[in-house]
């Protein structure tokens, strides 16, 4: 089976800015591939290049066995795309847009369309100007997921969706995978990628910094802990897997690798906990720490 997406050494410059700077990306058939990076890392530029919406300066680019720029029309029959910011026509209803995109892609499955509208709780009769940001994203998602495209290219598709709808989205992506479709999911939310993706490519400053399965990228999975303790703070800094420990009287703040979470929490409860907040670190924080050593292009 052909490799749906294969990119190597891709370069795209806008004036002086190198938006893509030697990107490699391989998406295998039938997988959900996470394309993870902070805002401005070059995810959308790479996706536009894959869609043949812009020309690149160097590198090779293969999409479904063809050339994304030259064969755009033929290739687009086989893929569906959802941008991170779906804009609609003010006086066309959501249903009209879904059908328009379906027609222009060569048809959509009416039963699946109805099911999608139902599960995303989207009213297709409203006009484009009346939809919220989240509902506009839903219009794009329903149109893409109702198509029979073998490749789904989703560029931060859940921006503006509430957590409940995020669940619905994840359900449909799993279903697409079960149907044998390939998904490229760009995101800056680690948790979303963790929940869905088989493999992940991490992009930063226009270049891939890591690719692998989630197990291989486990060192990225950390939790930020902020706690107020009842006793004097000691013995935390010595634990392996605890990073960036900051102590301010009886308050502590640190990041811990998930493998060391249990040990760290035991130590906290031994000291005595008055309050505790834990949250996944933002991708930006993670990147800042994890790739601090690498040279940062301005």
């Amino acid at each position, binding site marked *: 089976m052909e490799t749906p997406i294969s990119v190597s050494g891709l370069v795209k410059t*806008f004036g002086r800015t190198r938006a893509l700077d030697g990107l490699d990306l391989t998406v295998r058939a039938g997988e959900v591939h996470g394309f993870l990076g902070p805002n401005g890392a070059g995810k959308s530029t790479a996706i*536009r290049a894959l*869609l*043949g*919406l*812009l*020309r690149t300066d160097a590198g090779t680019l293969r999409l479904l066995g063809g050339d994304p720029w030259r064969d*755009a*029309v*033929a290739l*687009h*029959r086989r*893929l*569906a*795309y959802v*941008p991170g*910011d*779906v*804009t*609609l*026509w003010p*006086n*066309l209803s959501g249903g*009209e847009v879904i059908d*328009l*995109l379906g*027609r*222009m*892609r*060569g048809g959509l499955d009416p039963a699946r369309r109805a099911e999608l509208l139902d599960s995303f709780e989207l009213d297709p009769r409203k006009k484009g100007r009346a939809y919220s940001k989240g509902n506009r994203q839903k219009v*794009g998602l329903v149109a893409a997921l109702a198509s029979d495209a073998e490749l789904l*290219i989703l560029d931060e598709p859940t921006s503006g969706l509430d957590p409940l709808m995020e669940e619905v989205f994840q359900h449909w992506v799993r279903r697409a995978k079960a149907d044998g479709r390939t998904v490229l999911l760009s995101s800056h939310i680690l948790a979303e990628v963790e929940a869905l993706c088989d493999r992940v490519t991490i992009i930063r400053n226009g270049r891939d910094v890591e690719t692998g399965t989630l197990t291989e990228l486990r060192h990225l999975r950390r939790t930020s802990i902020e706690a107020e303790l009842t006793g004097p703070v000691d013995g935390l800094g010595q634990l392996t897997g605890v990073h960036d420990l900051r102590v301010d009287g009886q308050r502590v703040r640190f990041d811990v690798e998930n493998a060391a979470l249990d040990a760290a929490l035991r130590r906290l409860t031994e000291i005595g906990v008055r309050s505790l907040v834990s949250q996944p670190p933002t991708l930006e924080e993670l990147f800042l720490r994890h790739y601090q050593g690498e040279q940062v292009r301005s």
Partner: protein
Amino acid sequence: MTALTGTWQLVRLILRRDRVLLPIWILLLAVLPASYASAYAELYPTAAERAAYLAGTASNPSIVALLGPVYGDSIGALTVQRAGLLALIAALVSVLTVVRHTRTEEEAGRRELLGATVLGRYAGLTAALLVTYAANVLLGLLIAAGLAAAGQPGAGSLLFGAGVALTGIVFATVGGLAAQLTESAGGARGIGLGVLGLALVLRLGGDAGSSGGTGGSAEWLSWLSPLGWAGTGAGLRRRALVGAAAAGAVQRGGRARRVPRLGAP
């Protein structure tokens, strides 16, 4: 030819989006000439009254500058002068319509949504031009039908309708070209309206300097302006045909220069 794939779908989309706007401007502009004709017939029913109007008002240089030259004292000639502004309005609407369905779509990000579907690179511009051309043709036919129904000679009515339609078509093409020259909708509108303004100034200068279409020294200026081509219709058929040929040439030139732009930041 894959570059045009999806054009028909986009034509349908434009018609659906402009289902209110398009009929409104076509009908508004279409009924005016016939209404002028019946108004003149009521106001100046005799040839003597019309001759007086022609000598007094219609050939006043400022009126000629504003509306265009007048070629005689028939109701048809007076109507054509009065309706001279319609060609300007058709030109204006045509520029704005083409830009709105090309660059504005791109700026809003909607073209990207469609660009990822089965859509050729020339489809967007082609669809916008097709719809605007068709709207102008329809406008021209309605104008001709209205004038004929108001009792004007059929050939002259058709020529005047064709003049307005061709002016609109030329400026639709200007709008299409302007959209290729700049990345922003505002820039494209600026270029298109700038060309229109220049055409208007040329026509004003030419008509004001040629004392009422009788062939004065500055008449050639009017011929440099597409806006000068339309008004000549009912007055002098030969000139209208030259005008039509010139309009056709501009349009062909515009088509040859059609370059796609997709993507870029």
